[in-house]
């Protein structure tokens, strides 16, 4: 009896020790992952003189917001943020619309070459955007789309991945529902808008969050297309320009970095589930 109590206590002690070890491990991991971003926030709030202090300050005791104002105004981040918001909104809406339309056709409509066309859509996933850069720069220049929102957004208004995601979601909808709707006099378009799209909301949310992230963080294409002029330049390219004046203004560049990443951190906290769903779509069913 007493021996039993001892082993139980010993086991409990071992377990709590193991839990403590796990928390230690988790916390070390969290520090490693967060440290770069955390130090960036701290440095952006330090007065310039404190930036070279050693050991480096790990908490801004007297935060200075001046750098944020500089990045916002002189760094034109206010304008770049607006541009990024417009570009991202157009791409996200465009991708949702084209993916819903094509996904619906592949799931509910019968037409010759349907399978072939679906394979063609999937084939776009095998061609990285970088591979099409040579001719796309030429096309956009021929269209007179340099330094325009058309040039930034139009090449990304359709996505093979999104079409696939929505086709899968539409295929989950029971056929009976479509038949019942037909008896009620619903045509395909009405059925799509009133029934299919509301039922596919989880897939739409996943695609929306995914394309938001991808569009906001684009670097290569905005770099090529918004070479001159502030009027459509995105925030990522704005960061590159802040870095250009780095030596004297490291703290301003860091404030700009925080401003650029903040909307996405909010997005991550709010939409973590949807983001995870879209990112693991190919790995786990």
């Amino acid at each position, binding site marked *: 009896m007493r021996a039993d109590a001892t082993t139980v206590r010993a086991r409990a002690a071992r377990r709590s020790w193991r839990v403590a070890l796990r928390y230690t491990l988790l916390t070390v991991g969290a520090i490693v992952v967060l440290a*770069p971003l955390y130090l960036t926030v701290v440095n952006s709030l330090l007065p310039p003189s404190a930036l070279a202090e050693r050991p480096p300050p790990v908490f801004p005791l007297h935060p200075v917001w001046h750098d944020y104002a500089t990045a916002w105004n002189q760094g034109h981040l206010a304008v770049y943020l607006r541009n990024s918001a417009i570009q991202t909104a157009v791409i996200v809406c465009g991708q949702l619309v084209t993916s819903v339309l094509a996904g619906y056709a592949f799931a509910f409509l019968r037409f010759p070459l349907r399978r072939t066309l679906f394979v063609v859509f999937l084939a776009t996933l095998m061609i990285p955007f970088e591979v099409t850069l040579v001719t796309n720069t030429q096309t956009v220049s021929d269209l007179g789309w340099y330094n325009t929102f058309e040039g930034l957004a139009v090449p990304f208004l359709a996505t093979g991945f999104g079409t696939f995601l929505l086709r899968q979601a539409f295929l989950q909808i029971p056929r009976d529902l479509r038949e019942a709707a037909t008896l009620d006099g619903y045509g395909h378009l009405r059925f799509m808008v009133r029934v299919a799209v509301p039922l596919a909301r989880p897939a739409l949310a996943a695609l929306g969050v995914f394309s938001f992230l991808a569009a906001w963080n684009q670097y*290569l294409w905005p770099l090529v297309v918004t070479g001159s002029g502030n009027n459509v330049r995105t925030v990522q390219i704005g960061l590159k320009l802040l870095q250009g004046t780095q030596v004297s203004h490291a703290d301003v560049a860091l404030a700009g970095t925080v401003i650029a990443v903040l909307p996405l951190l909010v997005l991550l906290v709010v939409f973590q589930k949807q983001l995870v769903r879209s990112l693991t779509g190919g790995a786990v069913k």
Partner: protein
Amino acid sequence: MRRQRGAARSRRARALREAALGYLLVLPALAVFGVFVFYPFVENFRLALYQTPPYPGLPSRYVGLHQVGQVLSSSGFLQSLTSTVLFVVLVVPAGLLGGLLLAVAAHRRLRGMAVYRVIFSSTVVSSVAVSALVFGTLMDPVVGLLPWLGLNPSPPILQNTTWALPAIALMAVWQFLGLSFIVMSAGLSAVPEEVLEAARVDGASERTVFWRVTVPLLSPTIFFGVVVATIYAFQTFGQVDILIGYSSAAFEHVNLLVYDILNTIEVAKTSGQAAVLSLVLFLLTLGVTLLQLRFIERRVHYAG
């Protein structure tokens, strides 16, 4: 009889209408793909055969495969390919192992785990520009942390022919950690708990369970991760563009393939050569993807 024919006709009319609607719905996406994916992709094959004239305005000259051979054997290309492969080797294992480690640590129902999970996936939202500026400052020879840590390579790390590439790789690994964690976590949670429990009941230690049961069951996820990470590494160049640039002394050693393509288009303005490089990038990506398809096929075969 007549009614039957009428019914058949109206059925055919309905099928025709359905087909027309189908094409109409597919058309917007197809138009975008046609203009911005397939046309420029195919155009690479044509451009690769033509040499860009030395002065703008002159017609480009057909040189056949000569240009392909010329580019592929040039020292600049070989250096770029070497850097790219080395970069993949530096980024892929570290990025995946890091993500796996974090996923294993977070794979328990404990209080506060939701917070840890958000933190571990957080770098997925950081862009190349963000990771470049964050690490660029930390690695700066004046305001950075390296001298204080006793690491002070000369020339400074990002101008250093030896250390610039690993430095860029570190930024890429950090940026990739979030996605890696998310993918590995999803894989881990798909491993059935009963199988692990059965192994434990049979007296297997935690370590044996992990290496002999969890890892084999996780292998499809790991393989998927390898493909995603490799393609991600192939496409990296932004940190090089922001922090190093093509006029730096270290440039030759960090001239990753996509940066080479970009500079061939924008600086050298020789679209024929850029097309050859683009096709190389395509073949590399295709090779990695086909490897994954073969692997999945084999698994299905074994399972059946």
